[in-house]
C-alpha cells in the first residue's frame, strides 16, 4: 500500500465515491424523476407537431388531408401515444407538486394543499373540454 499524499495520523485520507453516470437507475424515485423531466421532450415534440398541423391547415385543404394521412401512419400514432402518456404524466405530476410552491391563505387559514391540487385538476378539465369543443366544431 502506497502512502497517499495528505495522509497523516491526524488527517486520514478521506474516501470519496463519484456518483457515476447511471445514478438515476439506482432508485425507483430517481428513475421516476428523470422520466418526469424527460416528459418535457414530448411537450416540445407536440409543439412541433401542432405547428406542422397549423401550417398544413394554412396551406389549404389538400395539405391538411395529406397531414392527416401522415398522422394516421402507425409509427406516428405510436409516437403520439407515447407522447400522450408522457404529457399526461407531466400534467399529473405538475398539478400534484404545484401546491408545494404556493401557500394560499383564505381568511387567515392555510388552504390545504389537496384543495389547490383539486382546483388545478378542475381547471384542467374545463380547459380540455373547452378546447375539444372549439376544435370539434363548437
Amino acid at each position, binding site marked *: 500500500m502506497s502512502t497517499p499524499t495528505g495522509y497523516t495520523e491526524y488527517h486520514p485520507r478521506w*474516501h*470519496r*465515491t463519484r456518483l457515476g453516470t447511471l445514478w438515476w437507475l439506482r432508485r425507483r424515485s430517481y428513475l421516476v424523476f428523470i422520466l418526469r423531466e424527460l416528459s418535457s421532450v414530448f411537450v416540445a415534440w407536440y409543439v412541433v407537431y401542432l405547428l406542422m398541423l397549423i401550417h398544413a391547415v394554412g396551406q389549404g385543404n389538400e395539405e391538411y388531408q395529406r397531414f392527416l394521412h401522415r398522422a394516421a401512419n402507425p409509427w406516428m400514432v405510436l409516437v403520439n401515444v407515447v407522447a400522450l402518456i408522457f404529457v399526461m404524466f407531466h400534467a399529473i405530476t405538475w398539478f400534484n407538486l404545484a401546491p*408545494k410552491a404556493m401557500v394560499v391563505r383564505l381568511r387567515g387559514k392555510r388552504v390545504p394543499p389537496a384543495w389547490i391540487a383539486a382546483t388545478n385538476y378542475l381547471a384542467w378539465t374545463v380547459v380540455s373540454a373547452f378546447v375539444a369543443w372549439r376544435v370539434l366544431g363548437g
Partner: protein
Amino acid sequence: MANNITLQVTRYRPEQDDEPTVQEYEVPLRKDWAVLDGLNHIKDHQDGTLSYRWSCRMGICGSCGMTVDGEPKLTCATFLTDYDPGPVRVEPLANFPLIRDLVVEIGDFMRKLPKVKPWIVRDDDMPISEGEYLQTPKQMEEYKQYSMCINCMLCYSACPVYGLDPDFIGPAAIALAQRYNLDSRDQGASDRLDLLIHPDGIWGCTFVGECTRACPKDVDPAGAIQRYKLTAALHSVKALLFPRGAR
C-alpha cells in the same frame, strides 16, 4: 422471528485500506432494537474497532445518520425487525467523503450553514427595557415546520443534485434560511437572498423531492425551496420593474 440478524457493515481503515470493504456481523434480533442498538452490540461485544457517530438515540441530535439498505436513515429510529430476516446493509451516509468506517466528513455542511445566517437578523435591535419580541401562535405556525430541522443531513444524502455537485448549497440550508425568513421577528430576508439566488443556491434544485422523503422530522425542505423560488423570482421581477423600491 429468528434469533439473529446479519448486519453487513462498511469498514474503511485509511491507514491500511485503499477502498472500503464489507464486514458481516451477527447481532441478536430483539423486538425493540434499532440498527443503532445492533451497532452498539457489535462494538461492545464483537469488534471494538468499529467507528460510528451516535448520541441521543432518540431522533433529536441528528448524529446517527447512515445509509441502511440503500436509504438514508437515522439508525436510532430504524428497527431491525423491519428488515427481518435480513441481511441489513449498513453503509456510511452517501454523498459525503468517508473518514473511517461509518463516519463521514460533514465540514461542507458546517461551512454552508452560517452562510445563510440562521439567526434572527434585525436592522434595529429593541432595547432590553422594552421586553421580548412578541409573536402570535399564527405567526409561529408560519415557520414552525422548518424549525424542526435537526441537521442530520439525510436530505443531503438523498439529494442527487448535491451528490452530483457538492457546491449546491443543499436542502437543509435553504429550509433553515426559510425558517428565519418566515419568522416575524426577522428582518434579514434580503441578506439571505443575495446568497441564495446564486446558481449554486436555490436554482440548482430541480425539485426531485427526495429530501422531503428522507427527512425524519417532516421538515419538507423541497416545499421550502419551491416556495422560496417563487418568492425570489417575484422579488427579481419587482427589482427589475422598480429598481429603487424593491428592497
